[in-house]
């Protein structure tokens, strides 16, 4: 209920915001463009997974000191710790680096960012890479349209960076009006209260301006105009260091749990560093003064002293927290767990059943039927049919021939949740119980294992089939639609008959009658009896349609042969001699091929 109304409420609030404030529109558009840039960036890095970049990254970040150096160097070159942290989040989300390496990069970025203060203080220079946003976008998008995978990857990265800068630019523009409201003299308070208040202002100013460098410039200006005391200016710098994590937090919104862990790690590191700096502010100030004297920095050259302070307090943060990286990793992994896929648990596989081979066999059989039932849902939905329709419809031919409903469902995730996990549990259980299985039961366990494997293979065949079945279900060409419907009818009828057999008394069941479906697909199909060739010759379907049909016929055939085998094992006789008799009488590939050849 809450989820259903959440999206309309958000949309309503946004529309109201757009209506009353053009600045709000600009800020939210900036956030949207920024997140879009993140998606592009991750897509770009994904193109390099398993290649050169991954090797390079794994070599340059496999040790803590290496990832630390990586963060220092890249931030010094790019002059943006936010960008480096966002890129680290992308690397991590794409599975190219470990969380510990990501934290190392973030630590390094915090040291690397202090070079910015030196550049501003020493040369009045600020490297503004956002000026490259537009060219990056243009070159990036051109490269995205290339066929070469590497070029495409570079294109995505360039365009991603371009969008990131563009997004930040719009956010800054939108917040411009708020900047004038920051009146630093209003927060003048003595002692630690003042320090915390100014740190909060520093956080706010950096969030608003989306740049700790911009905040540093503001602090230097305020210091020169004597709007703030030197002590409070340091608190502002501490706040700026915490506020700069907002970009990483924003970037992590579109990333997976690993990206969120890194953004949280970044925030924790910067907050702890900030708290340490405020707690020992007077000692750090003494260290700054001593360093200033050593390097001949004038007593009133607050700009350079701020740069010294920035460097010292970030170094302290790294030195203090470096020994706790592994603990931080464990904490983050615990605090932000990997989202659990809601997998189906085994119903019958319990240690208690391993006591006797008969109970063990029964448990594995029941679990295999459980697996089949879950697979049945995917197979039915895969061919765009509801299970209830397959099981209840009196005339499946008639119903399917006129049915054009495409079912919206995610086959892969359903397979992961309902089939793959269960199949893995069955395999694991049989492997563990191997020692308890007497030789006379071994064949039956083998058969059940085979049935499970064939069930899974059938789901995979249907996955391949689904693409064209869905495509041609809504196609205007009635001939190709008819051919695909014929495959759907055969699969659905087989599933229907299997269910009918299940309802019968085990003594009356005659599972080998399902062989009729093997004969039908191998001997009666239009693909094998030249019907498809005729359709192509008469121009009723295109050769491309014919090729697709022939390929998909293979998947449908495999599915039908496998399903009949599965049904024979799971729902056939339990008596060993009768099972053997059914197997001997049943039609195998050789029998059907022989008949087809003699036709």
């Amino acid at each position, binding site marked *: 209920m809450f989820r259903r109304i959440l999206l309309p409420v958000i949309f309503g609030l946004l529309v109201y915001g757009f209506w009353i404030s053009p600045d709000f529109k600009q800020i939210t558009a900036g956030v949207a463009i920024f997140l879009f840039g993140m998606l592009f960036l991750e897509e770009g890095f994904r193109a390099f997974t398993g290649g050169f970049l991954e090797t390079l990254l794994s070599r340059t970040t496999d040790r803590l000191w290496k990832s630390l150096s990586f963060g220092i160097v890249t931030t010094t070159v790019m002059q943006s710790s936010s960008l480096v942290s966002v890129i680290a989040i992308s690397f991590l989300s794409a599975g190219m680096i470990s969380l510990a390496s990501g934290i190392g990069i973030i630590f390094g970025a915090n040291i690397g960012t202090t070079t910015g203060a030196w550049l501003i203080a020493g040369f009045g220079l600020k490297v503004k890479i956002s000026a490259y946003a537009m060219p990056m976008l243009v070159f990036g998008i051109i490269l995205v349209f290339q066929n070469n995978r590497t070029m495409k990857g570079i294109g995505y990265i360039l365009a991603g960076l371009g969008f990131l800068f563009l997004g930040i630019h719009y956010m800054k523009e939108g917040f411009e009006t708020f900047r004038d409201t920051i009146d630093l003299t209003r927060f003048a308070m003595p002692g630690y209260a003042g320090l915390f208040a100014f740190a909060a202002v520093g956080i706010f100013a950096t969030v608003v301006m989306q740049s700790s460098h911009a905040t540093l410039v503001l602090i230097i200006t305020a210091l020169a105009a004597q709007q703030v005391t030197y002590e409070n200016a340091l608190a502002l710098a501490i706040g700026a260091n915490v506020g700069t994590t907002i970009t990483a937090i924003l970037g992590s919104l579109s990333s997976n749990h690993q990206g969120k862990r890194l953004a949280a790690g970044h925030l924790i590191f910067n907050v702890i560093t900030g708290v340490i700096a405020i707690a020992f502010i007077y000692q750090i100030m003494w260290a700054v003064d001593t360093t200033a004297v050593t390097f001949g920095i004038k007593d009133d050259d607050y700009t350079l002293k701020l740069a010294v302070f920035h460097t010292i307090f970030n170094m302290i943060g790294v030195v203090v927290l470096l020994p706790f990286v592994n603990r931080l990793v464990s904490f983050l992994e615990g605090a932000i767990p990997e989202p659990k896929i809601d997998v189906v648990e085994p119903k019958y596989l319990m240690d208690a059943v391993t006591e006797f081979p008969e109970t063990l066999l029964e448990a594995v059989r029941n679990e295999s039927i459980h697996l089949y039932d879950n697979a049945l849902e995917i197979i039915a939905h895969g061919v765009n049919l509801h299970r209830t329709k397959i099981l209840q419809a009196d005339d499946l*031919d008639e119903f399917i021939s006129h049915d054009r409903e495409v079912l919206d469902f995610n086959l892969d995730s359903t397979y992961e949740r309902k089939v793959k996990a269960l199949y893995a549990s069955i395999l694991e259980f049989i492997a563990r119980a191997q020692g308890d299985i007497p030789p006379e039961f071994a064949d039956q366990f083998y058969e059940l294992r085979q049935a499970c494997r064939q069930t899974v293979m059938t789901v995979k065949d249907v996955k391949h089939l689904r693409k064209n079945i869905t495509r041609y279900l809504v196609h205007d060409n009635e001939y190709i639609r008819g051919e695909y419907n014929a495959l759907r009818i055969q699969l659905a*009828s087989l599933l229907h008959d299997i269910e009918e057999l299940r309802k019968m008394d085990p003594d*009356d069941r*005659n599972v*080998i*009658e399902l*062989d*009729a479906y093997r*004969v*039908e697909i191998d001997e*009666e199909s239009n693909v094998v009896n030249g019907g498809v060739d005729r359709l192509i010759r008469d121009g009723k379907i295109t050769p491309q349609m014919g090729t697709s049909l022939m390929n998909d016929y293979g998947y449908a055939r495999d599915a039908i042969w496998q399903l009949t085998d599965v049904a024979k094992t799971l729902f056939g006789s339990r*008596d060993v*001699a*009768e099972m*053997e*008799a*059914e197997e*001997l*009488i*049943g*039609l195998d590939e050789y*029998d059907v091929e022989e*008949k087809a050849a003699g036709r």
Partner: protein
Amino acid sequence: MKLKDIFSSDRLKDGKKRKALKKVLHKLEKKQDKLEKEFRSESAKKMRKKLLLKLKTNKRHRRKAKQLIAELDQG
């Protein structure tokens, strides 16, 4: 021949096999009667085609079963 030897002999195994084959054959014959009745009373072309296919498959199964039983009888 001792009783123990009779139980472990191929003759007993063949006997079990023959019994099982005959049971399946019996089921097939019952099914054949049912299918023939359905086929005679069915008027829809598609359904008749389907039933005919089932009848043909049943016939192949029965032929195979009879052949297997005959092989066992011949030893």
